[in-house]
């Protein structure tokens, strides 16, 4: 069920984009406001038609301007979560979900609401739900459509940070059960890196960077469009122990990481985002430093950009950490690929929302004895 999108337009929003999302993949469309990313989403959904465009899902053409094919939105099996959720205000949460079903099934609707952690709230109307709860109803409704493509339009922008962190985790967990391609539109690199498998960075309607998340996050050209400080790497880890002094120890493949105030029970899987500009390099293992996190690794490549900085890729175990240092420093240290190097990270450098936890979905599955996984 691959989703292929191509769009070209001259105005009012200039566009020249093409990308492909595979079955089960989450692709993030990243860019500033006005870059054209929401327009692309609307093109996929059928709410907008550029001059030249093609949208194909699993071989079926939804839109092909050359062949004059343009399936109306309600004939496309697309699930979309709007920025402001666009829930039907006169219907309860359950009714909203049922509205997207081919055959309205209240039990099924309640099951999907459970899946998004809204157990017992099916009879409430949107006005009686919090922002985060409304967002989950919107997701549930999109899923109830049994869509061939799931589109998320900056779905987390309207909620506060604490709720956002929780929702990241839920989306990650949900993805384990989603078979369709997912496109996430966001202006937040943090969000993109935490949730996406692949990324497409768009600036003024043009693609300035595309590839796997790791590739894009390491590409200075792509990141220049988003603000160069965004270069970062992603490290998976497991929560090991919450220390009495507020530091949590996480076990990564490369060794322990100490970060402040990570929420979650020991044993929870997390993804940690490490900003390249917060990583210091040292040939020798330093002693007497305040930094709690010192990871040993190997330099794989040094990528220079246009400015005074270079991005050093350091292989740590099976993963890569990025470090952005000045070209001068790199020359002074005479860094070469293949050499051993230590990456130093301050515990306080990792922001709270740079850690995403995935809740335990197995509990939900057991409770309802239903093959929820198979439905998506």
């Amino acid at each position: 069920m691959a989703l292929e999108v191509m769009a070209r337009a001259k105005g009012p929003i200039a566009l020249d984009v093409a990308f492909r999302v595979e079955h089960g993949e989450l692709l993030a469309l990243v860019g500033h406001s006005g870059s054209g990313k929401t327009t692309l989403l609307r093109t996929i959904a059928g709410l907008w038609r550029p001059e030249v465009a093609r949208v194909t899902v699993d071989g079926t053409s939804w839109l092909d301007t050359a062949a004059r094919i343009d399936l109306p939105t309600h004939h496309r099996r697309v699930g979309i979560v709007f920025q402001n959720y666009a829930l039907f205000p006169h219907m309860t949460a359950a009714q909203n979900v049922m509205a997207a079903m081919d055959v309205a099934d209240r039990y099924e609707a309640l099951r999907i609401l459970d899946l998004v952690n809204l157990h017992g709230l099916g009879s409430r109307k949107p006005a009686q739900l919090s922002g985060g709860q409304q967002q989950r109803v919107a997701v549930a409704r999109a899923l109830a459509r049994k869509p061939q493509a799931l589109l998320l339009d900056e779905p987390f922008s309207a909620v506060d940070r604490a709720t956002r962190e929780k929702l990241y985790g839920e989306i990650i967990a949900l993805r384990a059960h989603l078979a369709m391609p997912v496109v996430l539109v966001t202006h937040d690199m943090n969000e993109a890196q935490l949730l996406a498998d692949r990324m497409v960075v768009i600036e003024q309607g043009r693609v300035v960077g595309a590839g796997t998340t790791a590739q894009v996050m390491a590409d200075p050209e792509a990141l220049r469009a988003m603000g160069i400080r965004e270069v970062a790497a992603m490290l998976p880890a497991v929560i090991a122990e919450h220390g009495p002094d507020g530091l949590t120890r996480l076990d990564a493949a490369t060794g322990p990481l100490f970060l402040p105030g990570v929420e979650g029970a020991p044993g929870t899987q997390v993804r940690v985002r490490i900003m390249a500009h917060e990583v210091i390099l040292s040939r020798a293992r330093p002693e007497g430093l305040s930094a709690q996190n010192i990871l040993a690794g190997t330099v794989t490549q040094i990528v220079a950009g246009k400015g005074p900085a270079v991005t050093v890729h350091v292989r740590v175990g099976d993963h890569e950490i990025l470090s952005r240092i000045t070209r001068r420093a790199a020359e002074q240290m005479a860094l070469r690929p293949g050499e051993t190097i230590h990456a130093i990270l301050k515990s306080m450098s990792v922001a709270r929302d740079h850690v995403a936890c995935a809740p335990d979905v197995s509990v939900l599955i057991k409770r309802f004895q239903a093959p929820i996984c198979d439905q998506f």
Partner: protein
Amino acid sequence: MDWTALFLSLRLAAWTAVILLPVAVFMGRFLAFRQFGGKGLVEAAVMLPLVLPPTVFGFYMLVAFGRNSPIGDLWQSLFGHQLVFTFEGLVVASVIFNLPFAIQPAQRGFEAIAVEVREAAACCGMSPMRSLWKVELPLAWPGLMTAMVLTFAHTLGEFGIVLMVGGSIPGETRTIAIAIYDRVQGFDDRGAAIMSATLVAISLFTIAITYWLSARVGRRLS
């Protein structure tokens, strides 16, 4: 109290409202959701009866479907009598004259629906018809009710058009407004007073309903 005239007026108002309800739904929705070149002209045309003097309107109605007009001849051949000076003729004139009262509030009611909600409906797989029934009507219904109530009340009070197109034929086109006029001319002040008071009561009741509906919309939206 001329009961015949009162019931005639109520029937005329009812028929006008019933016929205009689907018109209000489809035209109101069309104008609310679509942009197109010439939309301003269409809206102005719909608003025309609001600013046109009733006698001017009545005159054109007579020209359009009175005797010696294609419509009038057609009616004559179908039914054996003229369309003007009949109840049916009043209904035709009333429907046209009340277009702005029916379409405007309906259009506002539909416009109040957020674009995203309608887009969400389409994304849920709802065809335009289904979206109308399940999403748009439940959200726009206060606007539609207002349209119906206003149309009803306005028709009850209509005078100039009824007089020109219908004459004042008892039991056929003598509405209560005209009956009051006749009573005054006939120096029956008491009769005129009773009927006038009745019309005032009905109008007040209508206004009360409209305000109550607006309050409901306000509460719903807040």
